[in-house]
């Protein structure tokens, strides 16, 4: 079996969780992967400083789509303060596959979008 393209990665890629639009929503953001031009956007509904629902939309490779799908299940229910603390390691650990330096940008795109929506800081990760 392939190291990177594990069954659960392919499963999340082919049947992504929490994809689509969310109307109305309280927070949103859109980011590009400069490597390939892929786009990922997020809609977030917030209640009491906590993420109560979110949806991703856009297109990308298996890594970026699976990462968004896997993360979406964890993000629901987190407080905004918790989201602000999330770092690259959190996402990479969650993915559970060895990600090369080049593909890191794919793996982290969704966290970049979510952090952008929550904190307004679009520079992360540098």
């Amino acid at each position, binding site marked *: 079996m392939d190291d990177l*393209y594990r069954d659960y990665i392919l499963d999340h890629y082919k049947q992504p969780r929490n994809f689509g639009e969310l109307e109305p929503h309280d927070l949103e953001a859109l980011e590009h992967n400069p490597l390939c031009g892929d786009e990922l956007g997020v809609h977030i509904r917030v209640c009491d400083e906590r993420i109560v629902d979110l949806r991703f939309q856009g297109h990308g490779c298996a890594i970026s789509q699976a990462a968004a799908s896997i993360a979406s299940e964890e993000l629901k229910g987190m407080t905004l303060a918790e989201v602000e603390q999330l770092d690259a390691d959190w996402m990479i650990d969650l993915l559970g596959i060895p990600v090369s330096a080049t593909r890191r940008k794919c793996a982290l795109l969704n966290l970049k979008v979510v952090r952008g929506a929550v904190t307004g800081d679009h520079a992360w990760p540098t």
Partner: protein
Amino acid sequence: MPSVAESTLGVRADFPIFAGRPDERPLIYLDSGATSQKPQVVIDALAGHLRDHNANVHRGVYPLAQEADAAFESARAQIAAFTGATPQTTIFTKNVTEAINLVAYSWGRANIGPGDAVLITQMEHHANIVPWQVLCRERGATLRYLEVDDRGELSLSALDAELARGDVRLVAFAHVSNVLGTINPVAEMTARVRAAGAVSLVDGAQAVPQMAVDVEQIGADFYGWTGHKALGPMGIGVLHGRGEILQEMEPFLTGGDMIASVDFQSATWNELPWKFEAGTPMVAEAVGLGAAVDYLSALGMDRVREHERSLTAYMLEGLARVPDLRVVGPPEADGRGALASFTIGGLHPHDVAELVSRSGVCIRAGHHCAQPLMRCLGVGATARASVGVYNDRSDIDALIDALLAAREVFALDAP
């Protein structure tokens, strides 16, 4: 397998990178469109210059400095001859991106104003888009795009129609597209541009490495290319310009070497080509590029083109056997350069590139610095395989096998 022999130049052994990789996987290098590998003679020329003849150029009277001067200027002469240009009008830049920026800043700011238009095409590389966006915004001019048709080609009558509008001052276009592979009819295009009183710039980044290019015959006012794709070192590019236009232009970068004299408040400029070369140039890289064009000349650019055309035809045949694979650009190998960009239904190009790399196959995935074209094609990204002098049919066979295997990982044929 006589067919393999048919499309090999037999030069792989000249390129040390193929002698063995640390991971002992084979190196199936199909990314020459991004950068070429370097023959040992180029590496030796560059290293040998630094070892035996290194000095700063243009000013030293001691023998070592004169050797460096001679090496630098004779490399310029070799490189100019390779593309049918004169040394006086052959300017070294760090890459073709700088060459295009030089024209945008130096010619553009003096000649483009409100109401004027710059015409480029939908198939340009960002290097031949963004400098014109910046120029047009600064000067209040308009940037227009010539359409790419379904075959991935430009239309000369569309060019005529654009020129007939009377506001076009500059037309900039690729000689060979780095995504579609399209070989544009550059001489016909420059002739029309000249007839309309406009100036032409041709981006030869993909063309010079793979076919005989004669800038005199092409008749462009500016023709730029980049060393690293033409078997040369990185860090060196070339801008050929029409002498009269270069004479009239103000310099771009200013400083040492490009001046005739400097007073407290003003300066006068050196002669061509040095007027456009500020500061210490990349001497060893010029020597390396000189060795590269010598190597290519010895192979013969017509042979190089025929080899790569035939290999591209073979690749197009192979790609046609991969289910759900769609190639963009001209359908036949005759009208295209040595590459094929494609998408595979259900597979993202990044995943394709990653999966084929498991068998040592190196291809590129992404927007290839041509996002506007990607939009026109209706795709976010493509995978691209491009061939060089060192490739043969076995590389293509490995690519096709790897693509078929990639589809299996994603279980695309599963019921």
